[in-house]
Every structure is written in structure tokens, then in C-alpha cells.
């Protein structure tokens, strides 16, 4: 159920996600400029300190605005859309160009994530290399060549969707998901990378493993990276992996 704000030709639409959530849509494809808008919108709405909002959830192309289930007098849908339209006014006038995205990129943090790509961890490297017509070394080289953007966190606490990788790393998900992947597994699909923060099932192609803990519910900022961050994967040896892992566990 989509509706355009009556007052402007703003480059987004609203849709209701039930009577306690509104989704603002900024586009329909994976694009840093579109994703940056969702994050900027989250910041503007957060700063407005509306008492009935419980969560702002940026995704690839949208922002979820959730109302608290126990707020006694939530605004009507139209009233909420008018309020949000007013808050987002500064975004309506900035154009949707690359400059905008680059400005955001410059401000982004660079997070370095050590990854061990040895075959005992990178169990799908051979399959990926065969599928992409590359050597295993080339796959690793392309995966570590440049930082990737964190588009969103979802699926599990602290799990980021990062991309986009080099076009030569184009591979879909595995036809049969695995029932169990160990925490820290680094996986690729559709030119994106995820790292599974906990032991979990998963259908992506495993290239390696990080010894870092990605999510700690007791220590802010909880997740190692946030939407908008740039992430650089650094190659480490099995020995370095074990050393970092041992240190991480001591701290826990």
C-alpha cells in the first residue's frame, strides 16, 4: 500500500507495514547513493526525537520507522507521513547524484576485518574459482582488493550485508543451504559478503573465517560495524587466526 506525500515530488514513497510501522522507499536497487539516503533519513528522524518511535531500521533501499507497541496515542498514518515528510525536507532538495554518495563515503569509518582464507576455512573457494573462471588466488585477491560498504544489518544480530565486490566474483547462492556454519564464517553471493556472527544455517559460499567476535550484546556499540561503514578484509594465516581467536576468547 504505497502513497506519495501530497505536497512534494520527493524522491521516495511510503508504505505501511501494519498499523505500527511505515517503510520509506528510496529506490529499488543496490546503490550506495540510495542506501546513503536511507541512513541520512534515519539520522534526521532520530534527531527529531519523536516519542512514539521505537526503531529506525535502514536496509538496502528503505528505512523502516517502527512505532512503540505500547505508546497510548500513536499518530494516524497520514499524520505520521506528513510529520516524516517535513523532517525529510532537507533530503528532498539535495539531488540524488553521485557527489552525495561520495560525501557520505568520505565520512565513513574504515573497519579492518582479518580473514583466514586457508582451505580448511574457505571450503567453497574451489567451487567459486571454477564457477567464476578464476584461480583460488585470484578469488582471494579480488575479495581483499578494495573496501566494501556495509549496506545494512539483518538476519542475525551483528550480521552485515556488505558489497559490492568486483564483478568477476559474481556467483549466486548455493543450491542447497548448509544446516550448520560456524560463527565467523565469511561468505559471498550476488557480489555481497556476509559474516555469520553465530553458528547458524546458511546458503552463501564460504571463502574463509574471521577470528573476531562480531556482536556483543553487553558492550556498546554491540556490532563491530554499522551501515555506511567501509570494511576491508585482510588476509591472515592460520597461525594468526589462532592467536587472535585465543585473545578474543580471553577477553570474553
Amino acid at each position: 500500500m504505497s502513497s506519495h506525500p501530497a505536497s512534494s515530488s520527493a524522491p521516495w514513497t511510503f508504505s505501511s507495514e501494519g498499523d505500527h510501522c511505515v517503510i520509506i522507499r528510496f529506490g529499488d536497487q543496490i546503490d550506495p547513493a540510495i542506501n546513503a539516503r536511507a541512513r541520512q533519513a534515519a539520522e534526521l528522524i532520530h534527531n527529531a526525537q519523536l516519542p512514539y518511535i521505537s526503531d529506525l531500521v535502514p536496509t538496502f533501499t528503505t528505512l523502516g520507522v517502527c512505532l512503540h507497541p505500547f505508546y497510548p496515542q500513536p499518530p494516524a498514518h497520514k499524520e505520521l507521513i506528513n510529520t516524516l515528510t517535513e523532517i525529510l525536507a532537507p533530503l528532498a532538495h539535495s539531488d540524488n547524484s553521485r557527489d552525495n554518495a561520495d560525501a557520505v563515503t568520505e565520512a565513513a569509518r574504515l573497519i579492518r576485518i582479518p580473514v583466514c582464507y586457508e582451505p580448511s576455512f574457505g571450503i567453497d573457494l574451489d567451487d567459486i574459482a571454477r564457477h567464476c573462471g578464476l584461480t583460488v588466488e585470484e578469488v582471494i585477491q579480488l575479495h581483499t582488493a578494495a573496501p566494501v560498504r556495509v549496506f545494512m544489518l539483518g538476519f542475525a544480530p551483528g550480521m552485515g550485508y556488505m558489497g559490492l565486490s568486483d564483478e568477476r566474483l559474481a556467483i549466486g547462492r548455493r543450491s542447497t543451504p548448509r544446516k550448520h556454519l560456524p560463527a565467523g564464517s565469511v561468505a559471498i553471493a550476488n557480489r555481497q559478503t556476509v559474516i555469520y556472527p553465530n553458528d547458524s544455517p546458511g546458503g552463501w559460499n564460504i571463502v574463509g573465517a574471521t577470528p573476531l567476535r562480531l556482536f556483543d550484546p553487553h558492550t556498546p556499540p554491540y556490532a563491530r560495524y554499522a551501515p555506511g561503514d567501509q570494511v576491508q578484509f585482510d588476509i591472515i594465516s592460520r597461525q594468526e587466526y589462532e592467536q587472535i581467536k585465543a585473545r578474543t576468547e580471553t577477553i570474553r
Partner: protein
Amino acid sequence: MRSEEETGLLVLKPGPLSVFQDAGRHGYQAYGAPVCGIMDQVAFRLANALVGNRTLLPVLEMTLSGPQIKFMQDACIAVCGAAFSLECDGRPIALNRPHLIRAGQVLIIGSTPVSHNSPQGQARATLAIAGGIQLNTAMESASTDLKSRMGGFHGRALTKEDRLTLNRKLSATAVDALAHFLDQFRIYLPAGLGLGARHHIRVTRGAHWTHFTAHQQTAFLNARYTITSSSDRMGYRLDGPSLQTEPGLQILSEPTAFGTIQIPPDGQPIILMADRQTTGGYPKIANVASVDLPVLARCLPGESIQLSLISLNEARTVFLQREALFAQVNQALAPLGTAIEDAFVRST
């Protein structure tokens, strides 16, 4: 042998799935952390009000049947939600009322009695304790996240021999008078709170409603869907007419809500519940109206539900009507809060 010093609660039998939940882990979905929290928000609020808790403290949510708990100290409790059987030292006691359980007594919360006439709405009930229980908090919430093992009682469901510590202690000199007061207190709960069982669930149009043909929309609203056995706190899987969007609809992972009805590739709807993932990539045909989520939370696998479409304005109107009733109930129950608060040993 119970020593003089022994306090708190001892779990003799845990029940199939007894987890502590509060209003939910709000504000952390951007980190990918699910909201979790209570499935039946009406039972949660009412149980807290009945034991005089002025804020919404964590409660024990019990699925299918409840625990057996030995009380090592006096405590005031209430059970709301599904019509589970409730006994204190073998004596039946009433749902939706506050009770004083004495040190040494055993509270047995069973399933819905077999003789009970209604096959509907008997899945979940809620136990609240005056003053609350000491629990683990993660990201500002004591809700148990079973998947990430955080919050609640060590991030897990209760097990045999767990010992729970209460936050507050009732004064030995005040409990007799309090027991008398609680027994005499008259309680009227309006039907509009939504405590009764129903199989009629109201929905609003979902984000991808228009991607389903008129024929599919009609099929969705005219059918009876059965809640399957693979339904839990994360989601209810339904069995009924299969639905498909127009071919080629690609959706990038986007936010979901409590009550989002999504259509996975097999065409059988899934209603996302309290432990849902924060985002999802399946088409979303509809959303359950907030007021009907507690009704759904009490439905058992095997039951069928009938969906009907209402507007967002209607959904808000019925929500506000229920809020007005809650305000009345809270006001009527306010003397309970005062009496129980007065009976607590003053914290120093």
C-alpha cells in the same frame, strides 16, 4: 530441608517452554537484533496491573502448559492469557486475579483442562509476580532471545531446579491483611480487552498487496487457513490456498513487523511473530492489526483462522478503543498497586 534463609522460587518442573519476556528489545533492530518480547501483549499488561506493578516488568510466558514452582517466600502473583489450570497446594485458584502464595506452597500451572469447552486460544499464558524477578538484561531488555541466548533467565527457557530471586520482599506483618484485601477485591474485565478466544483475525494491506492478482487477494481473504505444527515464537506457518506474486518480482531484504504476513516461494503464508528476524525478502501480502496479535498469540497449531481486510484507520480506531479500556482497567486496579506496595518491606 528448607533453611530459614532460603528465599525466592524453586522450579520443580519447568513446563514445555517457559521464558521471561518484557515489552521487547526495542531500539536495536538496526543492529539486526530481533525485538522478541511478549507474544500476548494484553495478558502481559493485565498480569502486571493485577499484581500492582506500575511499570511493565518482565513476566514468565508459558507455552502449552506451565511450570510447577515452590515458593520459598510469600509473593503476590497473577496468571492471564490462555485458560490454563491453576492450583496452589492442590486448591484451584482463578485466572485473571491476584493471589498471595505463601512460603512453602507449590503453584502448579497446567495446560487447558481437557473438559474445557473451547478448542480455541489455549496456547500461551503469562505469570506476573509483584515487584518482579532478577533477570539478565541485554540491550535494555530482559526479553529472552532464545537464538542469541541473551536476556531473561540466562538467555534460555526455565529448567528443573532453577532458582529465581525476587526483587522485593513482602513484610511478614502485612501479608495477612494483604491476602484478605486481595480476596475481597472485585475485578471487572471488559470483553473489549480481547481476552477471549476468536478465530477471526483482521489485517491491513501489505507492502506488496498490489503484486497479487485480485483473484489471489480474494482467495487469501475468503479461505480458512490452518496454523501448522511448525509454528513458534518466530512465526506461524499457515496451511491453505497457495499464493504467488506476479512472476519476476525481486525484493531486496527490507524491514518486517510483528504480524507481517509474508508469502515464501511455496505459496503458504507465514505470519511473523515476536522472535521474527528484523528484515526479510519475501513478498508481504498483509499485516495483522495490532489489536488482534494477542488473539493470534493464544491460538494453537491445528486451529484455523479467517482473515478479514480493514483499513489503517479502522485498525487505529480499534487500537485506540482498546487503549481507552486499558486506561479504565488500570484506574480500577490502582488500589491493588497501593495495597501491594504498602505490604512490601521498604528497601533501604
